[in-house]
Each structure stands twice: as C-alpha cells, then as structure tokens.
C-alpha cells in the first residue's frame, strides 16, 4: 500500500534520513521504533509532505506521492495524528473534528464520520462545544486521533499517541488503535513505548540515526536480544 524507497531528508546540513526503505501492506499495523532523534517523526512528516525529501521516492497504491503538498496527500486518504497532538486550542471539539474532514464536501459522509468518531470516543461527544485547549492531555490525544479519522483514511500515521499519558489511558489508546485497525484502517505507528507497540503490531522496523537497522515480524523482533536491550528495557 505504502512503499518508501531510499528516502533521504535534510534539515539544513543535518542529514536526518539516510535512505530509508519501508513497506506497508493493506490492513497491517506497522510500528517504527527507535530512540529520540533517530528520525521517526521526520520520516512521517516527509511521507505526508510537511518536510521535503532530498532523495528517494514514496509510493501510495503504486502512485508516486513524493514531495506532493500535504493537502494533496491528505486527499489520497493518508492522515496523520502528529506528535504533541497539535489540536486547534481555541476551536471547539466539533470544529476540530470538522476540520479533519475539510477536504470532503459530502455532508452525509461527514455526518457518518462524526458518528463513527463519537462512538469510538464517547468522551469527545460529551465535550463537543468545549474548546480543545481546555481538554485534558488524554482527551486532546483522542481528539487528534479522531480528527485524523474524520476523512476515513486508508492509511493512518500515528506519531507518539501515548506520549505523556497516564498508564490506564495508554492502555485505552492502544486498544483503540487495534479497534481502528479492525475497521480496516492501515496503521503506521511511532512509539516510545516499544513494548506496547510491538504487542499490537504485525510488523516492525527499527530506525537508528536515519537508517533502518532491523525489520521483521513484531513478535519475533520483541524476542530479538538487541531490540530487547535497546528498546524494551530488559535484558
């Protein structure tokens, strides 16, 4: 579904991605693990067109989308919930969600999306008229994910959805990610919490200083000694 081939990205003189290859098949959950500064967010931002790539190619369903503007990529139904949630603080929950379906004109479709998101996140339904800046961290995270689901994406990019959340909320978010995947949404997940990520993912990639160093079945990777030592916090 998504294939990334030899992708390079530069931030000024910093070479952040050094030829990344990555493949996502339909209806998978693929997770990308790696330490801070490995280039995980850079990879997601390059895929969706926020950061220009300096080499390599990105294909979505066989169509090249390298360096297209983000609004064009979103129209192809790739959506992203960014790191740090990035909700619109002075807009209401409802307006935030409405913006998630900005590119869509069909009113019936939008209504259906609202129903779907509110059934996944009943908490948001209770707070439709509240401004996003007044929500708790967990609620903002739900809003960020819900907003990304509004245009019924085929591929959902999730950047650190559990960052800064209380443990019970982390569990809940991961359960939701699995539920969303069951609805037929393919997911690329970036996580600090590698344990949890590997437990729900089908496959995983390990990114270190801009290069993929390992990849494979999520269950097998979670047994890999190097991975356990570096990312799972046990030996």
């Amino acid at each position, binding site marked *: 579904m998504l294939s990334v081939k030899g992708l390079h990205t530069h931030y000024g003189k910093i070479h952040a991605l050094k030829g990344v290859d990555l493949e996502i098949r339909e209806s998978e959950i693929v997770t990308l693990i790696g330490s801070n500064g490995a280039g995980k967010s850079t990879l997601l931002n390059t895929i*969706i*067109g*926020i950061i220009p790539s300096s080499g390599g190619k990105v294909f979505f369903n066989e169509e090249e989308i390298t360096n297209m*503007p*983000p*609004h064009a990529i*979103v*129209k192809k139904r790739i*959506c*992203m919930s*960014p790191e*740090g949630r*990035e*909700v*619109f*603080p*002075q*807009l209401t929950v409802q*307006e935030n969600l*409405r*913006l*998630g379906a*900005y*590119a869509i004109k069909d009113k019936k479709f939008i209504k259906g999306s609202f129903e779907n998101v509110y059934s996944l996140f009943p908490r948001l339904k209770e707070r439709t008229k509240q401004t996003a*800046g007044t929500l708790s*961290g967990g609620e*903002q995270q739900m809003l960020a994910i819900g*907003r*990304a689901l509004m*245009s019924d994406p085929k591929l959902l990019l999730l950047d650190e959805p559990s960052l800064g959340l209380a443990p019970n909320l982390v569990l809940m978010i991961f359960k939701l990610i699995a539920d969303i995947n069951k609805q037929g949404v393919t997911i690329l997940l970036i996580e600090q919490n590698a344990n949890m990520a590997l437990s729900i993912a089908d496959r995983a990639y390990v990114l270190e200083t801009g290069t993929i160093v390992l990849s494979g079945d999520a269950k097998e990777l979670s047994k890999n000694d190097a991975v356990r030592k570096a990312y799972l916090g046990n030996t």
Partner: protein
Amino acid sequence: MYPGMQQKKLMFWRYMFNGLAVGMAYALVAVGYSLVFGILRLINFSHGATYTFGAHVVLFFIGYQTNIWLALSASVLFTGILAVGTNKFALEPLRKKKSPPIASLITTIGVSYIIQNLLMVFMGSERKSFPNMLDIPKLDLSGLPITEPQFFLFTISFALFIILTLIVHKTSIGLAMRAVEQNTKAAHLMGINVNQVITFTFFLGGASAAIAGVLMAGYYQLVYPTMGFLIGMKAFTAAILGGIGVMHGAFAGGLIVGLAESFASGYIGGTYRDAFAFIILIIILIIKPTGLFGKKTITKV
C-alpha cells in the same frame, strides 16, 4: 434651561456620531491588518496604500462615466487582486526562503511606497475632489445631530464588518482561516491548502480596504495618493489597541480611536486630533500589553 446648555449637548452628540462613523471605517481597515497578522504574524504596512488604491480605482472609472456600482465592484476586484499580488510576488518568495520576519515587514513598507508612487505617476499627486456619488436616499435627519454621510458611512461599514465576521466565523473557508491562524502545521494535515487560505485572506483584506477607502473618500470628498498613510497608521493602532488577530478587537479599537479623536478635536482642538489615537494606544498598551481583547497564545505540550 438656558440655550447654551442645549448647544453643549448638541455638540456632544455631533462629536459622538462623527466619531462612530469614522471609527467604524477605521475598524474596517483594522480588520485587514488583523486578518493578515492572524495568519502570517506579519504587520502588513502596505494595507494603507491598498486602501488608497481602492479609492483611486473608483475615481479612475468614474472619470470614464462608469456606473458607480460598476466602478465600486471593479475597485473591490482590482484592489483585492493587488493585495493578493503583493503576497504572491513580494511576500511568498520571502516565506519560501525562510527569511526573517523583519524582511517581510520592510517589504510591505516598500510595497506601500511603490503603490503610492505609481498612483502619483498615473493619477497625479494633487488632491482631487471625490464626487458624492452614492445616490443617497433622502433621510429626514432634521433635528438630529447626525448627518446623512455619517449615517451611511456608519451603516455600510458596520454591515460590511458583520459580513466579514460571518465569513470568518460561519463559513468553511473561515474555519480554515482560524485553523491556519492557530496551528499552521496541523492545518496542512487537515488537507487545507494553506497557500489558498493565505491568498483568500489577502483578498478579503484588500477588498474591505477598497470599500473603506471609497467610503472615506466619499465622506471627505477628497482623494490623494498619500491619503492612506495616516489612516493606515490609525487603523493599525486600532487593531493593536483592540487586540490584533481578534475581529471584535478591531471593531472596538476602531470605534475607540474614532471617538477619541472626534472628542479630542472638538474639546481640545483640531491640532491634536491625529495624536490622540496614539496617546490612547500607549496608555492601553501600558495597562494591557495584548490589547483590550487580545488573547495570550496558549501552547500546551
């Protein structure tokens, strides 16, 4: 009651209505600063010249005996395009190069002088009388301290201000404008074509400046290439005073500046009129640095 008392009361209301009428036009110009600032965090100093341009376009078309409504529509269209062009050809390249904000600021000042000078070259630098062209229906205002031009300046500006507010708060493109204002990166992720939103914002600012320019030219029955300088500064003051980036801030700021200078010139003397906007600005900023309705930007991580 002796007649002097009556006279004093009448003068008070005259100053009041004059201030409201002119202030409403300031508010309309202030919105242009506010909208662009909201989206780009840039003070667009070419806005005053844009306003001047709007008035001159109408004067130009009227010279060819064009119907006033046609001339007005042409002015809105061309002035909107001028504002969009300023962004496309002078500001967008700077943003692409990630130039420091000061470069854009200086550019807008440069653009303002270019527009002013081009108007001098093509239309002449002298003060030209502007026809009182609106076929104003006769109103019976006898006995009231408000004149017909004041009444129309106020109502038309007010109506336009309401329309602008509705565009920003009730339409889909308005929602996109507010999204870009609050978080440009997230706006990209929503599938919003941010460049298109910026273009639209400049058009809206240019169009409202054009209408304000025509209204004020009609009010004072005077047009000249530097007419936008002072009003540009005052409207900018109004925007800052009310809280830049907020619609009702521009509204309140415009009225405060208009009223203050009307009362000041009435009671203190016309010489001080233009200084008053700025005196009030300084006082309000000392008390509340974000302006009356300015919001602190909350960034929650």
